[in-house]
């Protein structure tokens, strides 16, 4: 705005210029859709039919994305609740709608049933879950992650891995003729484009819903209350509005939209496990680009992402899936609050560490000494399998979770990209060192390869930090999650550097000092030494000026700034150090697995790291290792106890209980229970 004021006298204002540019672009697009193309354009864009179809598909897909994302953004706008179970609601709506449609033989019954059922689920979630966590945005978000893990697993149990296909009423099915000319044959006959009618229906529904939402928000009393709530929750309840009821209502609407889009979208494509994550990611990117909490933003974001996805699929098929994330990162770099978001929402909520209270100071107690001895003697009592698969894996995952704990516990920034950073170090080792795939493998000596890989991880982590620290609190979770997914897709699609879906195999630690470090016991001790080093480094760093400054900037960034600290730099440095730890763990992890592929750094694995950190507790650096021990134990032996297919329900439920009962994890749980269990309270309890 200030720019506009300065330039007011000198010709057209930037606003006028941009309107002019938009009009021109619109005119060109209209001509490209309805005009007859000259040959050079046909050649350039691979035929008009291809281009116009991709644009139409992009717009109709945007309609679907808007439907899904509108519920997500509405809930966020009012409640600051980043509902990461939104995708699960979408999928559940689709399944319920499918069953209802099959049972009644009527597709419309399915639509109504799916939407209403999820509206009810949304309202119930608000009443029984989120209401209890009011004011703790981060815990609400973590709870939604837990819910999504359990929900995905239960849906798999109920509906199986099958793909369901709605039968659309015949009046909505088939292709229709459009007035768009795709080609003129040599005999003068005009060929027009035929387009699937149902996709146009999807677009129409989303336009109606969008207009309805806009009108409801801007003309009704209910809408006024919601908008007032978006701006200032506290004032709204002070004016006598029953905010509780309003919240339930909004969550029901959010659910309604998720369920509706589940059936609508499920009919356009199909219903299968995994769609929950897909639409969650789409919603995340759409609202991050469009601006959190804004319906108009969701529309703009959906249009951008829909078009990028479809045009990308046709014109740059290999990297099309990465394109949407590039748009997201660019938007964040230029306008962190998103296109239509306002800066106030972005930083309105002071970042809050997931655990209440301070980090527990680490002291060397006899107990800690005993634990250290136990860890060293562990290989003596346990079998090589236990030492390797449980011991080493626990230490490695613990280290990755530790890097998350540093950022979350000390810095107040929960990063979902820590496994990605570890994976980058793993990829670097595979690429720079020897590997058994026959692709790349530069065979650099380990003395160069390993430190360099860890350094690369640190730098990448700092770069992710540079993007993430422009925002705060729950935003950090979303952005780092999206960065992680972007890397997953990049690695999966790129063959020249990452060797695509297959990744690299045949990667082993070097034989140094005549020791085969890949054998169980040496590898365990290697992991133990690295873990002890990182652990000590964290303990030391926490007491250093840097660590104290970081904690200060977590608790009150403004005051830290006033004292003279550059909070942004502090946080980026924290990301760098966390990246080094994750990188070291990543090198060990690739040696542990002997291989690395995109699956190693998939979303579910990333969420696993967060689960480990939360279960263990973020108030003490030993927490992530405890969490990892429990996680690895369950993962390995779930098949003998509950059956492999229910591992996720089990771990998700434990995660939910921990988040609900004890925000500081197992450690906190123990601290609370110990005085009740013991006859006399122990010294430090």
């Amino acid at each position, binding site marked *: 705005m200030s720019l506009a004021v300065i330039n007011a006298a000198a010709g057209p204002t930037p606003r006028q210029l941009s309107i002019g540019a938009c009009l021109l672009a619109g005119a060109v697009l209209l001509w490209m859709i309805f005009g007859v193309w000259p040959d050079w354009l046909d050649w350039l864009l691979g035929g008009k039919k291809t281009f116009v179809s991709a644009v139409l598909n992009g717009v109709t897909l945007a309609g679907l994305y808007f439907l899904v994302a509108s519920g997500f953004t509405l809930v966020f706008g009012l409640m600051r609740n980043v509902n990461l179970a939104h995708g699960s609601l979408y999928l559940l709506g689709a399944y319920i709608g499918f069953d209802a449609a099959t049972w009644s033989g009527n597709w419309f019954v399915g639509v109504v049933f799916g939407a209403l059922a999820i509206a009810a689920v949304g309202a119930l979630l608000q009443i029984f879950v989120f209401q209890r966590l009011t004011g703790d945005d981060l815990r609400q978000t973590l709870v939604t992650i837990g819910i999504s893990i359990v929900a995905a697993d239960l849906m798999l149990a109920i509906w199986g891995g099958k793909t369901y296909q709605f039968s659309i009423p015949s009046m909505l*099915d088939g292709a229709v003729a459009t007035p768009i000319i795709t080609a003129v044959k040599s005999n003068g006959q005009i060929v027009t484009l035929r387009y699937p009618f149902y996709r146009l229906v999807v677009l129409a529904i989303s336009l109606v819903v969008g207009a309805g939402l806009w009108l409801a928000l801007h003309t009704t009393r209910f809408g006024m209350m919601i908008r007032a709530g978006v701006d200032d929750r506290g004032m709204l309840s002070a004016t006598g509005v029953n905010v509780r009821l309003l919240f339930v209502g909004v969550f029901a609407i959010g659910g309604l939209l998720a369920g509706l889009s589940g059936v609508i979208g499920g009919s356009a494509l199909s219903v299968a496990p995994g769609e929950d994550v897909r639409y969650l990611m789409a919603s995340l990117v759409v609202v991050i680009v469009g601006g959190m909490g804004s319906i108009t933003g969701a529309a703009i974001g959906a249009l951008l992402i829909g078009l990028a996805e479809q045009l990308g699929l046709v014109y740059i098929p290999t990297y099309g899936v990465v394109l949407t994330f590039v748009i997201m990162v660019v938007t964040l770099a230029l306008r962190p609050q998103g296109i239509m978001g306002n800066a106030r929402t972005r930083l309105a909520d002071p970042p809050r560490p997931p655990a209440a209270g301070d980090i527990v100071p680490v002291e060397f107690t006899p107990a800690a000494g005993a634990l250290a001895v136990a860890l060293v003697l562990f290989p003596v009592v346990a079998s090589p399998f236990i030492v390797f698969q449980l011991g080493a894996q626990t230490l490695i995952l613990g280290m990755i979770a530790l890097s998350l704990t540093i950022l979350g516990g000390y810095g107040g920034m929960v990063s979902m990209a820590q496994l990605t950073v570890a994976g980058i170090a793993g990829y670097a080792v595979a690429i720079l060192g020897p590997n058994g795939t026959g692709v790349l493998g530069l065979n650099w000596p380990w003395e160069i390869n390993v430190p360099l890989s860890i350094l690369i991880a640190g730098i990448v982590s700092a770069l992710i930090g540079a993007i993430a620290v422009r925002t705060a609190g729950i935003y950090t979770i979303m952005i780092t999650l999206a960065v992680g997914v972007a890397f997953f897709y990049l690695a999966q699609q790129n063959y020249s550097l990452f060797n695509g879906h297959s990744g690299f195999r045949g990667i082993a630690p070097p034989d140094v000092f005549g020791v085969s470090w890949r054998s169980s016991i040496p590898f365990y001790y290697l992991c133990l030494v690295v873990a002890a080093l990182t652990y000590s480094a964290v303990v030391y760093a926490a007491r250093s000026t840097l660590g104290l400054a970081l904690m200060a900037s977590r608790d009150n960034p403004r005051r830290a700034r006033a004292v003279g600290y550059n909070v942004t730099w502090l946080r980026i440095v924290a990301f760098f150090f966390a990246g080094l730890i994750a990188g070291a763990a990543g090198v060990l992890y690739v040696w542990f697995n002997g291989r690395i592929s995109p699956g190693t750094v998939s979303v579910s694995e990333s969420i696993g790291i967060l689960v480990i950190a939360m279960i263990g507790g973020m108030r003490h650096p030993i927490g992530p290792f405890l969490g990892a021990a429990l996680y690895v134990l369950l993962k390995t032996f779930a098949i003998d106890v509950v059956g492999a297919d229910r591992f996720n329900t089990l771990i998700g439920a434990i995660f939910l209980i921990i988040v609900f009962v004890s925000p500081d994890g197992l450690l906190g749980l123990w601290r609370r229970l110990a005085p009740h269990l013991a006859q006399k309270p122990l010294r430090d309890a």
Partner: protein
Amino acid sequence: MKIKTSIALALLSSTALAPQWARADDSIKVGLLATLEGPFTVLGQDGVRGAELAFKEANYMAGGKKIEVIKGSSDASPDSAVKAARKLVEKDGVKILIGPLSGDEGLAVKDYAKTQPNVTFINGTSAAQDTTLRDPAPNFFRFTTDGAQWMAGLGEYSFKDKGYHTVVTVAEDYSFPYTQVFGFMADFCKAGGHVPKKFWVPIGNKDFSSVIAAIPDKVDAIYVALGGADGVNFLSQYQQAGGTAPLIGGSITVDQTVLGTQGKQRDYVIGTPAAGPIADNAEGPPWKKFVDEYKAAYKDGFPSPSLFAQGYYIEAKAMLAALDKVNGDVSGDQAKLRDALTHLDLDTPTGKVTLDKNRQAVADNYLTEVAKADDGHLYNKVVKVIPAVNQTLGIPEADFMKLGVANRDNPNCP
């Protein structure tokens, strides 16, 4: 309190989790690894059904010893497959491991097999070429055919009998579809066909409409190698977009998922040729007997055994037959067992199976076409059985290796 924690940990690790040393001489522990979690759960369950059917037939006895089966589960990622295999071998102490189910898992388990010379690994249904073709493991056996072998005969049939001379391919962007397209094109290009464009869609992509619009108008047919869910999506979207070009299917494209779905695409897929290791209504009593047994044993199974049930069944049968020959001797380096496996002449519901020098199956392949039964359901009708397809598709090995590794651009005949 921390002492308590550590003592508890130590106790837990030394008692509850210690390997069970009790090992009776009269039983053999066999690991069964399949995808029992994640998106491929349904397929993994059918694989387990197939293996258990073979064990039941033998009354869980082989070579005079009791077969004790321990299940392992992966989520289709190679990491999880190796972790599960490691648990079965190193913790549960299995002597023979059957599995895994999918391609990249197979490559990872083969690498792991090299570190466990005293355990014999028998494949599940994983079908990557390089599990046995390049750098094979001496203790990894595969009695099922690979993704390229599954295509044997299809390219030539499409060109000569169907008269499709120009074909575009639509397949997912990773190694298994590369191998399938490779197998199809090896035949098809040699017969004189042209593939002007290959569409590789990202894994998990559900929206094919823009790809469909980009398919050139002047093609005789579209070769589609998309698994279950994606195949259904492609078909319904192609039909919605008013597409008319006939289809050619990969081995997992026109499976029960596609044939069993409702909707207009049903009629459209009739006449679609495809190829693979099984056919629903193959002739011959062994197959019919297998199907009947499967149906009788598993009311909750598929209407007809999937290629995963068939694959695991064959692998389990091979193991049982070899164990019978060596009287259940799995001691030491298992040289006898491996020798028996290598020289096995196995009769299966889908024909005779023998192994080549890389311990890779040479087996019959089925060329099918979708047909409509009298009661209205769709099935894959056998057009032709290609006998004894080897891993190099009948091409001399040196020439075949020159074709290189299947990828996005190889092979190429525009």
